[in-house]
Each structure stands twice: as structure tokens, then as C-alpha cells.
């Protein structure tokens, strides 16, 4: 392949673009290791804010609530979203299909405030005690649409004759889904779960609307703390969150890359074997 020269224009736009995206995060990470209590003054390197974080009962509590909500709502949203995607991708043209697919996509573009408010009104009307479960249901509601979109795109690129072949060989539809369809769309389902989990993890608006006493998520906790002034402790929490997300993304892409390399190697071998 021809080695293309990188022009100055490209380098400048690259640097500008990435600075714009990552400079705030880099500053946040650096200041989480600040020994000084003042956020804007560098007082030397220290990990004391991480230690103090470990003793901050409230913060740990909020993190635990957030993780539990994230796990349950992501799992529920994945199940519901996958079912919706199956119907949209496989059922062909049925009465009300356009309406149904439109309604699946609507929450993607709906302002969060409206979504949060409407859910709050619903929970109030139902006379439902608000807290952990209401946040979880609210997160499931909007994350499910994202899952449906991701899984549906995976299903669209999937050879339908695989399912037909399974049924042709005597496998009933539900079993076909678990034995043939699910293993094939698993990367999409996993990506949908990850997406739902991260959406739940960083949601502030909808959680604020639907929460009740005793259920404070991490973003809510951080937000309320920041109103009293930014402490390096907050920086430390955020750095840990950034760290978790980064490790997750890098692992996922490394696994995909390795699988692809393995596959290419196998295909070359099969091709070579075919030459004899």
C-alpha cells in the first residue's frame, strides 16, 4: 500500500479535534491526583482523594445503587429490546408496523426532561412509592429503544435462511431462536446491553425525576456535591468511571480484532487447502 504523507492541515485538525474532546477529561484526571484541597491550584502528587473516597460511605452507597440499577435495567432492556427488534426484522409487513417502528425510535429523539416528567406523572398517578424500582423501570424504558436499534441492525445483516434451515431440520421456532439466532446476534445483543448499561450509569435527568427517598444514583450524588463546590474527591470518582469505561472499550475492541484476525487466518488456510 502507498504510504500517504500527512499534511499539516490534517495534523492541525486532528490535534484541535482531539484537544476539544479530551482536554477537559485529561485535566480532570490530572487534578484527581492533586494534593491540594483547592481544585485550581496544583499542590503536588497524591492519591489521598482515592483513599478518602473509600471511606465516603455516601459515595459508595450511591455507586452501589447505580450499579444495581444499571445491571437490572440493562438486562431487562436487552430482553425487551431484542424481542422488539425480532418482531421488526422478522415479522414482515403486519398491521401497524410503521407506527410500531416509529414509536420504538421516538424516545431516541425525545427530550429527556419530557421523558422524565411523563414517567414521574405516571408513577404519581399509579400511586407508586418512588425509589430504586421506579428509576430502574424508567431506565429500562428508554434504554430498550437503543437496544432495539442495535439488535435490529445486526438482524438485518443476518442470513434468514439460517433460521429456515434450523426449522427445516425439525427445530421449533423458540428453540431456533436460542440455538441459531441468538448465537448469531450475540455481539449485537452484548453491545446493546453495554449501551443500556452506560446510558443508565450516566443518566441524571430521568433519575432525578423518578427517584424517591433512599435511592440516590452516582450522577445525582456528584451533581449535588458539585453544587456545594468541586472537591478533588469528585475528580477521583470521575477518573475511576473514565477508567472503567476505557478498559471496557479497549477490551471489547481487542477481542473483536483478535476474532477477525483468527477468522481471516482460517479462511486463508481453507483457501490454501482448496488449491490441492
Amino acid at each position, binding site marked *: 500500500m502507498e504510504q500517504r504523507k500527512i499534511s499539516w492541515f490534517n495534523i492541525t485538525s486532528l490535534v484541535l479535534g482531539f484537544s476539544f474532546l479530551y482536554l477537559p477529561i485529561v485535566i480532570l484526571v490530572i487534578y484527581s491526583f492533586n494534593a491540594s484541597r483547592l481544585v485550581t491550584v496544583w499542590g503536588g502528587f497524591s492519591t489521598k482523594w482515592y483513599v478518602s473516597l473509600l471511606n465516603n460511605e455516601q459515595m459508595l452507597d450511591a455507586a452501589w445503587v447505580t450499579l444495581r440499577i444499571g445491571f437490572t435495567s440493562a438486562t431487562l432492556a436487552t430482553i425487551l429490546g431484542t424481542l422488539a427488534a425480532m418482531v421488526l426484522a422478522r415479522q414482515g409487513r403486519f398491521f401497524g408496523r410503521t407506527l410500531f417502528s416509529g414509536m420504538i425510535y421516538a424516545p431516541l429523539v425525545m427530550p429527556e426532561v419530557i421523558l422524565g416528567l411523563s414517567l414521574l406523572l405516571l408513577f404519581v398517578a399509579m400511586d407508586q412509592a418512588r425509589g430504586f424500582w421506579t428509576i430502574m423501570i424508567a431506565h429500562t424504558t428508554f434504554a430498550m429503544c437503543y437496544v432495539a436499534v442495535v439488535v435490529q441492525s445486526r438482524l438485518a445483516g443476518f*442470513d434468514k*435462511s*439460517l433460521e*429456515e*434451515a*434450523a*426449522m*427445516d*431440520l*425439525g*427445530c*421449533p*421456532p423458540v*428453540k431456533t431462536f436460542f440455538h*441459531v439466532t441468538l*448465537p*448469531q446476534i450475540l455481539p449485537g445483543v452484548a453491545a446493546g446491553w453495554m449501551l443500556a448499561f452506560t446510558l443508565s450509569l450516566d443518566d441524571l435527568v430521568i433519575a432525578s425525576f423518578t427517584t424517591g427517598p433512599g435511592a440516590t444514583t452516582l450522577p445525582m450524588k456528584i451533581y449535588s456535591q458539585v453544587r456545594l463546590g468541586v472537591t478533588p474527591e469528585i475528580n477521583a470518582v470521575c477518573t475511576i468511571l473514565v477508567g472503567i469505561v476505557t478498559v471496557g472499550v479497549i477490551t471489547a475492541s481487542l477481542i473483536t480484532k483478535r476474532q477477525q484476525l483468527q*477468522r481471516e487466518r*482460517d*479462511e486463508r*488456510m*481453507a*483457501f490454501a*487447502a*482448496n488449491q490441492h
Partner: protein
Amino acid sequence: MAKKPIGPVRRAFAPWEDPNAIPFIEFRNVTKRFGDFVAVDNLSLSIYEREFHALLGGSGCGKTTMMRMLAGFETPTEGQILLDGQDLAGIPPYKRPVNMMFQSYALFPHMTVEANIAFGLKQDGMPASEIKSRVDEMLRLVKLEPFAKRKPHQLSGGQRQRVALARSLAKRPKVLLLDEPLAALDKKLREETQLELMTLQEDLRMTFLIVTHDQEEAMTVADRISVMDHGHIRQVATPGEIYETPNSRFVAEFIGDINLFSGQISEVNENDARLFCTVLGQHIDIQGAGKVTAGSNAAFAIRPEKVRISLDKPEPSNANVIPGEVWDIAYMGDVSIYHIKIAETETVRAVVANTTRLVERPITWDDKIWLSWDRDAGVILTK
């Protein structure tokens, strides 16, 4: 390496000529509509046990829809499909005693070759030991024993095709459906596989139904061919009958190469007829013309290999003789195709076997020659 015996000579097989034979698969007035589009139009067809039947036609002719209705993936809008006397209506695909080999092979990518072949057997709840021996038998049959543990993407196209075949045969279905099974293979492999399929069908004594757009493939493998067009069957007959006595211009032109002369029937004498061809301005005599009426419009059809060419005018006999001029010659190796100009707007193709080496062509460009053919060499087409 010792040569393998080629097996017993194939016996003649023609249950469709026996009026008492009971069809194994029966389509009764089947219609399939997709919205406004009529894919299969009031079609009836009988296929007999142990027959190798081919549905032949271009894309969109309804052949695949026919097969998918038999497999249960589509439901007929009207009509009935019977298999071994049983009406298939309402029976889902996973309960039908037919198996299909898909055009895309549809191998399960996350399973090994072995697991792919065992998949259907597992659904039947067959004991593990029996599954093992059946899978081994299938692997032997398609010569893939060393590849049992491989995944589909670790196989070549030809090997994948054989896995798909083994998988669809493993359950010993009453009918094997083959949807363009060889379309993805190169020519040499395709020809080999066609012969393998024929041997397999003979050995397993199964009924095979193949869908193909490749007329040579249909001619090679099938006992009988249904030529399809726009949801209708134009002709059902053995490859020989389809080629030698096509029943319409469509079938004649679809299968192989043919010369057509349009005209009017001028005389009918029992089974013989005489056609006046306007382009030639002369009569053509036909022996065994079948049912035709004088004065009706018709066409005379003759295959290029049945047209003889000579430099000298053939002795007046009962053959048809037409003068012409060599317009072009296509040398194919085994044969040469002569394009003979017989009128300002018409050429006739004649195939001549190259029985001697091509040192000097006896007949060459611009030669004035004579075309001739026997009176029973062609057919009259009225449709």
C-alpha cells in the same frame, strides 16, 4: 490407485407413463400471490417416488416459491399440496418429512461440521450413539471425514456445499429439496457434483426435487423437467422429449439452440404437413407434424445439429433443401457453428462436427451452399 467400479447400469425409470402409478408429491391447482404479484398461477404437478425432478426457469418464474411451499416456508393462497397422500396444509416446516439444501448453504457458523450434520438428528431426540454413527456415515458419504471438527468458515466453497448436502440428507427425508445447489461452484466442480448427486439419488432411492436456472444442469441430473415461466409450467417431460419435441416456442428457445421458421400451414395430409415459409418463399415438408389445421399460423423448429450443409445440391429426395451463403463460422473445437444467410433478414445456424483436423475447411466464408434436413428432423410449433 485402483479404479472404483462404476456400479450397475441405470435402469429405465418412467412411472409417469403408468396410468395406475400414484404420485408421491402432488400440487393441485396451487396459486401463490404476494400482494398483486402472482408467483405461482393455478398450477398442478405430479412427482413420483424416487424421481429426480427439476424445476427449470428464469428468475421470478415461481420455481423457488414452489419449493418453499413444499418445505412449508410459504403457504399457498389457493390449492393443495399432498405428500405421500397427506395434505400438507397447516403442517409447519419443522414437522414436514422433507429437507432442503439451501442456495446459500445456510450452515450454522457457530457449529462444527459434525454439529451441523447432527443438528437435525438431535431435534428428533435420536440417542447420542446413533447420532454419532449416522454423522460418521454422512461424513463418509460426502468424503469430509478429516474436516469433522472444522467450522464452516474454515472450509472451501465445495466443502461447504458437501456439508450442506450431508446435513440435509442426514435425517433421511422422504424428499430432498435442492435450491440452486451448485450455483456457487465453478464449472468443473459443478459437473462432478452433478454426477455425484445422480449417483447419490440412485443409491439412497430418494425423491429429489431440484430448482435451477441452468438448463444443462437440469438436463444432466433430472429424470423429468418442468419448464416454468411466469408462474406457469410450460412443459413437463423427460430431458429428451423437452429437447426433441418442445411444445411451444418458449420451451424450444429456452432449452438449447434452435432455428425457427414462421409461416402458414398450407396442406395437411394425415400426420404430415406442409408449411409455407414467407421469408424463404418456399414450402417446408414435415413428417409427423401432429395435430395441425390447414391455414393456421405456425412455426417450424429445427435444432442446428440436425441441419446438414453441402457444396453440391443434394439429390432430390424426400429431404427439405434450401440454398444459402456462409455468413459466419464459429469454431468451437469439437464442432463449428455455421451461420448461413438464407434471406436478407434471416440466418440459419448449422452445427457441423469437426471429424477431421482443421487443415483446410471444405466449406468456408462466402461459399454458396445447400442446407438440407430430413422431413422428420424438426417439429411444428403452434403456440
